[in-house]
C-alpha cells in the first residue's frame, strides 16, 4: 500500500486476518479482508451473526484482548499504521481519530458515572481544555444530537434514560473529540423501529455536516441502504461481495447476497407467501471447509467450488464479488429489483 493512496482514503484494510485462540480450536473470525473507505464515505458491512463484521470493526481500534488474539495484515486510518502502534499511541488514537458507537449503549456506558461525566472525561483525555470548557462542549454535543433539555440530561445516569436517548449519548460521546472516522457497531439493532429511523437520519446528517467517514456494521439491509454509499457483504470472515448501494441492490452477483436479498420481507409480499430463507447454517469458524465457505448452502454450487480458495473478481469499477460462477449467475428477483 503506497502512502499516496492513504491521502485520499480514510481507511485502508489489507489482508486482515483475526484468529482467536484460547478455545479448543483457534477460531478464524476474519479471513483476508481488504477494504477501503474514502474520506466522507459511509460503508456498510452486512452479514449474519458470526460473519466477522463486528470483529473487523473492532480490529480497527485493536479492541480485541491482546493475549487471545492473533492479528495480521495492514490497517491504516488517516495515514496512521494502526497495527504498528504501541499502547500509548493506540490510546491516543482511540476516541480521537477513530471512535466507536456500540450496539447496546446501556452496556457500553459505565453505570456509576453520569453520562455528562463520561463525555467530559473523553474530551479532557484528548483535548487540552478545562473542565468547564469540556462541560460546555458536552452541552453543545448534546444539542447537536438533539437531546432535549441537554443541561439536565448531562447529570443523568445511563439507566435513567430511554434507549433512543442513550444511543444519542453514545453518538455524542463518539463525536466528542472530532474524530475522522466513526465506527458504528449495529447502532440501531437494540432500538425500536421508529427510533431506528431517527438515529439513522441523525447519523446521515452528522456525517454530511462533519465530513466523517463511517463504517457501519449491521445485519439490517434496510438500515444499510438508508445510510451507506457502499455495501460490503461478509460471510464466514470474508467479504464476498462489495458494491455501491444501487448496484448491489439491483444486480447482486454473489449467490449469498442474492439469497440475503431474497430473504427480506417486502411490503409487496402477498399474504400466505413463504418468505425465502437460506438453508443450512453458517460454517464453524474453527473448522472452515476448503474452497468457498458458502458452498454447502449455495444453490449454484458445483464440485470445483469446494476446492481451493476463490479470488475476488472485479465486475465493474465499484463492484467485486468472490464467486467462481458470477458470470453465469443472473439475478431475477423481481421484488428486490424494485427496491
Amino acid at each position, binding site marked *: 500500500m503506497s502512502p499516496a493512496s492513504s491521502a485520499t482514503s480514510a481507511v485502508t484494510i489489507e489482508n486482515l486476518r483475526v484468529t482467536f485462540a484460547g478455545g479448543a480450536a483457534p477460531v478464524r473470525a476474519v479471513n483476508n479482508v481488504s477494504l477501503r473507505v474514502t474520506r466522507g464515505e459511509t460503508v456498510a458491512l452486512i452479514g449474519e451473526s458470526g460473519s466477522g463484521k463486528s470483529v473487523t470493526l473492532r480490529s480497527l481500534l485493536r479492541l480485541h484482548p491482546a493475549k487471545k488474539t492473533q492479528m495480521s495484515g495492514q490497517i491504516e486510518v488517516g495515514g496512521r499504521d494502526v497495527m504498528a502502534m504501541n499502547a500509548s499511541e493506540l490510546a491516543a488514537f482511540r476516541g480521537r481519530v477513530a471512535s466507536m458507537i456500540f450496539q447496546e449503549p446501556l452496556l*457500553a456506558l459505565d*453505570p*456509576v458515572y453520569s453520562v455528562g461525566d463520561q463525555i467530559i472525561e473523553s474530551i479532557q*483525555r484528548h483535548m487540552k481544555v478545562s473542565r468547564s470548557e469540556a462541560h460546555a462542549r458536552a452541552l453543545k454535543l448534546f444539542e447537536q444530537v438533539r437531546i432535549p433539555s441537554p443541561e439536565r440530561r448531562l447529570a443523568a445516569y445511563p439507566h435513567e434514560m430511554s434507549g433512543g436517548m442513550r444511543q444519542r449519548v453514545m453518538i455524542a460521546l463518539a463525536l466528542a473529540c472530532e474524530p475522522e472516522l466513526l465506527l458504528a457497531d449495529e447502532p440501531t439493532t437494540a432500538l425500536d423501529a421508529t427510533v431506528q429511523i431517527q438515529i439513522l437520519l441523525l447519523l446521515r446528517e452528522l456525517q454530511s455536516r462533519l465530513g466523517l467517514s463511517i463504517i457501519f456494521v449491521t445485519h439490517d439491509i434496510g438500515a444499510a441502504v438508508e445510510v451507506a454509499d457502499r455495501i460490503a457483504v461478509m460471510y464466514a470472515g470474508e467479504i464476498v461481495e462489495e458494491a455501491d448501494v444501487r448496484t448491489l441492490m439491483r444486480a447482486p452477483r454473489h449467490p449469498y447476497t442474492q439469497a440475503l436479498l431474497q430473504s427480506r420481507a417486502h411490503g409487496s409480499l402477498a399474504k400466505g407467501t413463504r418468505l425465502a430463507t437460506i438453508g443450512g447454517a453458517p460454517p464453524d469458524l474453527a473448522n472452515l471447509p476448503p474452497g468457498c465457505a458458502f458452498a454447502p448452502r449455495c444453490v449454484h454450487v458445483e464440485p470445483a467450488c469446494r476446492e481451493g480458495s476463490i479470488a475476488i473478481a472485479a465486475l465493474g469499477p465499484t463492484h467485486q464479488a468472490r464467486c467462481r460462477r458470477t458470470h453465469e449467475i443472473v439475478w431475477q428477483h423481481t421484488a428486490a429489483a424494485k427496491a
Partner: protein
Amino acid sequence: MILFILRRLLLAIPIMIGVAIVCFSLVHLAPGDPLVSVLPPDASADLQKQLRTLYGFDRSLPEQFFGWISRAVTGDLGTSIASSRSVTTEVMKAVKNTLILAAFATLIGFFFGSLFGFVAGYFRDTLVDKAASFISVMGVSVPHYWLGMVLVIIFSAQLGWLPATGMGAGGSAAWEWDWAHMKHLMLPAITMSVIPMGIISRTVRALVADILAQEFVVGLRAKGLRDFDVFRHVVKNVAPTALAVMGLQLGYLLGGSILIETVFAWPGTGFLLNSAIFQRDLPLLQGTILVLAIFFVLLNVLVDILQTTLDPRITRG
C-alpha cells in the same frame, strides 16, 4: 437525603424490638440458675427467695421483659448479678474496646483484602491470582484462636516484640491513644483481620472479574482511556458492594470476637459475654447482646445509606 436517612432509622425500630424479644427469650431459655454465682451453697430458702424478688426473677417472663425493656429505653440495662455494677456502664466500656479492635481489624482486612482481590481479579488464572486466592482461603479457614496463639508464640514468646495479652500496660481496661496501647492492639487486630481479609478479597476478586468482562470496559478503552483510568472506573464500580461487605464484616467482628478476646484477654464485649455466660449473669448477658444487636442494626443502616450514595442505580425509595 436527610429524609431518606430518617426513614431508614424509623424502619430500624421494629427490627430492634424484635431483636430485644429474641435476645431476652434466648437468655431465659438457657438452663442454669442466675443466682447460683452469688448465692452461697448453703444459703437458706429464705435468702434465695429474697434475692429472687430483689432481681425480679420471681415474676412471670412477660412481666420481666416489659420491666427490662421499659428501663432499657431509658438507658438502664439493670445491675450485674456477679459484680453488682451497672450493666450499661460495663457494656459501654467493653463496646468501646471491642469497637476499636474490630475497626482496626476491619481496616487492615479491608486494605489487604482489596489489594489481593484487585490483583487476583486483574491477573486471573495466573500465579499471582493463585497466591492471593490461597492467602484469602487460608484467612477464612484457619481457626483464628489458633492463629492468635501462633502469633503470640512467635512475636511475644520468641521475639519479645509485642505484648501477649491485655489492652495496655498494667492491665489497663480503658483505651488510650498511646504507643503502649497500640502495641497491645497489634496482635489481636492482625489475628482478627484475617477473616474480613479473606471474605473481602474473594468478593472483590469476583466483582473485578465480573466488571472487567463487561462491555463498558471495552467502551472505556475505545474512548482512548489508559489502563489507569479504566482502573479508576473499575474501583468505582466495585466500591458500593465492597464497602457493604466491609460494613457487615465489622458487624460480625463486633459480636463474633469471643475467642480472640479470650485468647488475648482483651476487655471487650466478647470477653464480657464469656464471663457473663459462665456466671449465668442474665442482666449482663442480655444487656450485652442487646447493645451489640443495636450496633449491628445501625451499621446495616449506615451501609445502606453509603451504598445508596455511591451507586446511582439504587433508588432512595
